[in-house]
C-alpha cells in the first residue's frame, strides 16, 4: 500500500463558536487524485487551509508526510494553487517567469539568489504547461485560464510531491478549463504528483479524479466517483434537485 502523504484525524475547526469542520478523517496516499466537493459553506477551503497549516484545528491531528504539521518543515514538498483567477491583481507588473520563479523562494535560503537549478526547474515547468512562449509577458495580460495555469506552474516549479488546489477553474472558460485539467492529468500520470482538488464543479471533478470526497462539515463519503454518483450520496449532499452527469475520458 502506498504511503500516506496527508492525514486528518478527527479534525474539528471552529470559527467564532461555529463548527466548520466536525471530526473529519481523511487520508491521501501517494499517487491519489482526490477531489473534494460539497455545497457552499461545507468547509472545503477550510479543509485545504488546515492541510496547509494556515488554519489551526480546534481538535484532532494533522500530519503531512507522516509528521505532525506543527513540526513539519519540508514545505517545498507541498504545492498550493490558490483560487486566484478572481482575486488576482492584474496590474501587478510581474512576468510569467518572475511569478513562477517566486514559487521556489522557499527552497532557496533567505537572502540568497536563485541559482541555475532554479532557473532550469522553472523552464521545465513552463514547457510542461505550454507557457514557455509567454514567459516574458505580464501575467495580468494573459487570459484567466492561462493565469490559472501560471499559478499551477508556480506550484510545480517547486517540484512538490503533493499539490493542493483550491477552486482552480473559477472564472476559466471551457477551453481553458480543458487545458487546465489536461495539465493536471499529465502531472498525475507522468510525474506521479499526488493531487487534492477542492471544487464546486461536481461534474468536472467526478470526471477527472480517482477518488471523491464529499464534505458538508462532516465527511460522509470517500471512495470512487462512480460509487458516489450511483448510491445517492450526491442527492444527500446537495439535495435531489441536482443532477450530475459525469463521464470519464
Amino acid at each position, binding site marked *: 500500500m502506498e504511503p500516506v502523504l496527508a492525514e486528518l484525524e478527527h479534525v474539528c475547526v471552529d470559527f467564532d463558536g461555529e463548527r466548520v469542520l466536525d471530526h473529519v478523517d481523511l487520508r491521501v496516499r501517494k499517487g491519489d487524485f482526490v477531489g473534494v466537493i460539497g455545497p457552499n459553506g461545507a468547509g472545503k477551503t477550510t479543509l485545504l487551509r488546515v492541510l496547509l497549516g*494556515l488554519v489551526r484545528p480546534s481538535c484532532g491531528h494533522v500530519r503531512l508526510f507522516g509528521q505532525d504539521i506543527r513540526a513539519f518543515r519540508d514545505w517545498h514538498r507541498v504545492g498550493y494553487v490558490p483560487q486566484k483567477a478572481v482575486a488576482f491583481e492584474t496590474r*501587478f*507588473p*510581474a512576468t510569467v517567469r*518572475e*511569478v513562477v520563479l*517566486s514559487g521556489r523562494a522557499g527552497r532557496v535560503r*533567505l*537572502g540568497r539568489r536563485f541559482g541555475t537549478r532554479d532557473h532550469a526547474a522553472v523552464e521545465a515547468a513552463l514547457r510542461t504547461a505550454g507557457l514557455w512562449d509567454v514567459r516574458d509577458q505580464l501575467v495580468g495580460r494573459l487570459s484567466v485560464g492561462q493565469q490559472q495555469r501560471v499559478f499551477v506552474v508556480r506550484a510545480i516549479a517547486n517540484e512538490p510531491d503533493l499539490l493542493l488546489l483550491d477552486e482552480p477553474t473559477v472564472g476559466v472558460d471551457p477551453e481553458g478549463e480543458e487545458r487546465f485539467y489536461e495539465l493536471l492529468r499529465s502531472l498525475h500520470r507522468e510525474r506521479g504528483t499526488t493531487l487534492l482538488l477542492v471544487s464546486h464543479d461536481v461534474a468536472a471533478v467526478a470526471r477527472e479524479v480517482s477518488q471523491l470526497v464529499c464534505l458538508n462539515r462532516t465527511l460522509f463519503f470517500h471512495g470512487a466517483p462512480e460509487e458516489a454518483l450511483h448510491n445517492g450520496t450526491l442527492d444527500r449532499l446537495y439535495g435531489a434537485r441536482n443532477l450530475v452527469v459525469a463521464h470519464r475520458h
Partner: protein
Amino acid sequence: MELLQYGFMQRALAAGVVLAVAAPTVGVFLVLRRLSPIADTLAHVALAGVAAAVLLGVAPALGALILAVAGAAGVERLRASGRLFGEAALALFLSGGLAVALVLLSFARGVNADLLGYLFGTVTAVRPEELWWIAGLGLAVVGTVATFYKDLFAVTFDEEAARVQGVPADALNLLLTLLVAATVVVGMRVVGILLTSALLVVPALAALQLGRSFLATLGLAVAAGVVSVVIGLAASFYFDVAPSGAVVLTSIGLFAASAWASRWRR
C-alpha cells in the same frame, strides 16, 4: 553647469540622488502591497524623534531614526495583530507622532528648533558631514532590498503562497516597514516630512504605468526618482522656488506623462 559650481548644490544633488534611488526602490513594494500610507505615518513619528533629540541635545537624525524604527515595529505589530482596522492604526501613529513632536517642541522654547525645516526639507543646507549618514542609510536600504529581493517579491506578489512555502512573511513585512523608516529619515532632510511619502510613492506609480516586468518597474521607478530630483533641484536653483516642492511636482509631472504614454501605448 552653473549650479554645480556651488558646494551647497553639489551636496543637495548628492543627498537628493541618494533619496531618489532608495525611496522608489522601497516604494514599489509599498505601493503594490497597498501600504503607501505607512510612509506618511512614519515620517510624522520621525518628527517626534527630532523633537526629542532637540530637547536632549543629540543629533536630530538619530532621534528621528530611533523613533521611526520603533514606530515601524509598532505599526507592523498592530497591523499584523488585526486588532485595529488597517488604516486606523496608521492614523493613530501619524497623529500621535505629530502631537508628541508639538508637545516636546513647546518645552524646547529658546532651543533652536527649526520645525519648518524638518516639515518642508532643507536640502540646500545639508552639511558635508551629514552626507555620510545620508549615503550610509540610503546604501543600507538599497543593499537590503537587493539582498532580500526574491523573498520580498514572493511576499509582495502572494503573501499566503509564500507563507505556505515557508518564506518568513512576518519577518519580511517587518523588514519592509523598517526600510520605510530608514528612508523617511533620509527624506526628512531632503524633501521634508510632509513630502517624503511622495518620493516613495509617486515615482513607483509612474513606473507601474510602463513596467514590463517587476525588475524593469523597479529600474523605472529609480530613474523617475533621479530625474525628479535633478530637474526639481535645477528648477529650484534657477527659478528660486522651494526645492522639495519642485522635486515632488516634477515627479507628479512624470507620473502624468507615464500615465498618458501608457494609454497611448495600448
